[in-house]
């Protein structure tokens, strides 16, 4: 399959490239240049540039959106909201029927859910709240939903929260890992993060319950704060790392 990766050189991108490199033909785009020795087609592209996204999507079978900009009060909307519009416009323009979108868990489960409830699932109506990152991504997701409602294409959205290195289980920017001290109950090893995208790219569209489906993307963990069964059931995703050293006091770490 010919796959366009938007924002493919950020934190998640390299793991997605690794998961899909041998199975698909990748066109990777980002505002940052890839590392030396990068073996795939690369285009320097800003997702908020409609014409550039339209050109990059030509000839593709699938678009995967990994682009994000969290904190800048203008760029966050440019990338996360308008960037999604550009992606969906490109999908329609080129007859691309599969779009894989990614985002943070709180574009759906904002504080009004997370601070209050358990059993939170990916089919709930979004309540992102007013945090810039959450709301700008949520509006991008809403644009995807509208396009899926109006056009013969599918949007598969993977929501992430906390990512950990498969070896040390360290989270980004974390200097010390506190084993046996619990963790964010929506965590996944980076390797598995990439694998989840591969599953979304490869799932038969006829197996999706609707043209717009959202999935919580995290490992098998016992908290039941969030539900992750849907991604295993529908996309066939099987996480390799279960992060048990974080939440099981009897699990040996050495």
């Amino acid at each position, binding site marked *: 399959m010919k796959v366009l990766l938007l924002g493919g050189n950020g934190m998640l991108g390299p793991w997605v490239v690794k998961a899909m490199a041998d199975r698909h033909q990748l066109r990777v785009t980002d505002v940052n240049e890839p590392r030396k020795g990068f073996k795939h087609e690369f285009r320097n592209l800003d997702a908020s540039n*409609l014409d550039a996204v339209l050109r990059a999507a030509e000839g593709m079978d699938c678009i995967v959106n990994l682009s994000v900009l969290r904190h800048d009060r203008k760029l966050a909307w440019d990338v996360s909201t*308008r960037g999604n*519009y550009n992606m969906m416009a490109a999908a329609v323009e080129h007859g691309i029927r599969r779009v894989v979108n990614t985002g943070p868990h709180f574009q759906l489960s904002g504080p009004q859910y997370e601070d209050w409830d358990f059993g939170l699932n990916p089919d709930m109506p979004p309540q992102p709240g007013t945090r810039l990152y959450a*709301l700008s991504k949520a509006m991008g997701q*809403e644009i995807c939903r509208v396009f899926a*409602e*109006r056009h013969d294409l599918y949007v598969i959205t993977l929501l992430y929260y906390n990512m950990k290195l498969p070896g040390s289980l360290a989270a980004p920017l974390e200097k010390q890992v506190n084993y046996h001290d619990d963790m964010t109950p929506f965590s996944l090893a980076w390797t598995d993060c990439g694998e989840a995208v591969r599953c979304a790219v490869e799932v038969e569209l006829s197996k999706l319950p609707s043209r717009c489906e959202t999935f919580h993307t995290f490992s098998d963990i016992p908290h039941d704060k969030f539900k992750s069964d849907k991604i295993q059931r529908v996309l066939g995703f099987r996480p390799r790392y279960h992060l048990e050293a974080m939440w099981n006091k009897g699990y040996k770490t050495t």
Partner: protein
Amino acid sequence: MKILVTSAMSAMGRTVAGALKKHDVKLTDLTGGCTGGIVANNLNHDAETDRLVDGVEAIIHTGYEGQEGDASSLLDYYSRRTYNLLLAASNARVDRCIYISTLKLLQDYEENLTVTERWRSHPPSNDPALLACHIGELVCKEFARDRLIKVATLRLGWPIVTGQRSKATATGETAALATDDLATVLNAALGAKIEQWQDVHVQSPAPGQRYLLHAAQKLFSFPVPPPTPPGQPVARKGARR
């Protein structure tokens, strides 16, 4: 009451502002071509936007047909700039925002259906003005959900006809809205006790009218119900239908 009206250069903004004669109205629009006492402001995340809302008690944010442009500029206005406006407003403790939307978001429903505020809107993907208006609704809703400001979304009927209700009726359009009726609702929305968040459908009552006005009736007593015929029991306010 001190009120800020956005997109004041637009026809919709002028219609809204024209309905607020009893209030102290401050008009604003983006910097391109502002004239005649309209404060130029790009609704960026800056001190200018903070000053714009300082001392304001209510904002009327013109959501539909307030701005013109391509999809990028419209989405930018109704997502980012709306976010900046409402964040500044909530920091300044502005009590409420009246978001001017449109009943066109519900035009996919056939006319025989009893479409109230409890029916989900279906924005099109190929009409940037409607899609952006819808996104603006959702941005406003999250500010209400976080209890930072009260929001009433007024979804206006179309076409908007200048003058009395009879002129709207005379068009034969089943969702027409007379500016006299719009003025009645706007002034009620500014003064009424409202919840944290509400959608309100607004059109002029007419034979075969397309949209039901339950929320407008409950919140703003719009339209004024016809007098009860002699001998009939008077309907109790809030009685179950």
